[in-house]
């Protein structure tokens, strides 16, 4: 038995109404799914876009000292670079000098085995007091080594950013 013989012939609007209702439902569902999909994508995008910078203070650090870190990075060793670069490191060493950069942030220079060369640490906060000659451990992101100018006898530095003191 098909629909023609089932008495539907006497109700000409029935099929259309039923079919229209189904279509509406399907359309609404598709619309809802699309909105949900877009909202999810937008939410994920928003979360990724606004994800915070990694927390240096709470990160697990690679421990080293200023002399070893300087030697490792200034000697262009690929293995050592992979070990330290862009990693959070905790560097212990003797304070050579405390300076301020153009932005007013404190910069602590740690002694290395080469005169004039330092592990150059830009601090995130200007708290605490630091004296040249004191031993300290600084935790920060190791961004690498920049050559100085050998022609004028200026050695390069190894740089750490977003630093905190760690004990």
């Amino acid at each position, binding site marked *: 038995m098909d629909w023609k013989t089932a008495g539907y012939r006497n109700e000409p609007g029935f099929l259309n109404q039923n079919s229209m209702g189904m279509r509406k439902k399907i359309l609404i569902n598709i619309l809802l799914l699309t909105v949900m999909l877009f909202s999810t994508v937008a939410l994920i995008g928003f979360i*990724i*876009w*606004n*994800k*915070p*910078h*990694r927390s240096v203070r709470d990160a697990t650090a690679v421990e080293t000292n200023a002399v070893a870190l300087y030697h490792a990075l200034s000697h262009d060793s690929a293995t050592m670079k992979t070990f330290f670069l*862009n990693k959070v490191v905790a560097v212990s060493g003797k304070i050579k000098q405390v*300076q301020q*950069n*153009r*932005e007013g*942030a404190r*910069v602590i220079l740690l002694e290395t085995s080469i005169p004039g060369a*330092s592990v*150059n640490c*830009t601090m995130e906060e200007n708290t605490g007091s630091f004296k040249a000659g004191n031993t300290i451990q600084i935790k920060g992101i190791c*961004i*690498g080594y*920049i*050559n*100085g*100018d050998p022609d*004028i*006898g*200026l050695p*390069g*530095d190894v*740089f750490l*950013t*977003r630093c905190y003191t760690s004990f």
Partner: protein
Amino acid sequence: MKINFLLTVVLFLVFQSAGAQVYYTKNGNVTFFSKSPLQDIEAENNQVISVMNIQTGELQFSLLNNAFHFPKAKMEEDFNENYMESNKYPRSGFKGMVTDINAVDFTKDGTYPVAVKGDLTIHGVTKTITAKGAIIVSKGTISAVSSFTVFVKDYGIKIPNIVSNNIAERIKISVNCSYQEK
């Protein structure tokens, strides 16, 4: 013997005077600013080594690209991984001259407008640029400021179409350094 002694003294004095002509910083400041319809992006780098010879006008800058700090972590990630390819091209630099260094009186406080010309290397591409700037002499300290514009396409930096509304084609670079005597 006397000649050797005199030669040593002369050489010592020559090197002493040459040394006094060289100024440097290891914590210079470079910022860049990108203005686009959707968003402005500004990043800062305070780990810039710069050397200036105030007698010859020779000037150089060197920085690590991954030292640029952005307000958002994702911007920093995209900058290093997608645009600057910092693993492949870790450094940017400039080597050139202050072409009118003689116009600066380093014994007298003041702000002296200067012009700079030299080779700027970004993303492994080197281009000759000229820029205006100023050397500031104040109470025995020397600092230098400059700002100029670069086009990202000149340095082979590809911006995908999908984010082209977010990142400007022209980037304003500002330099701000306080020098100390070598």
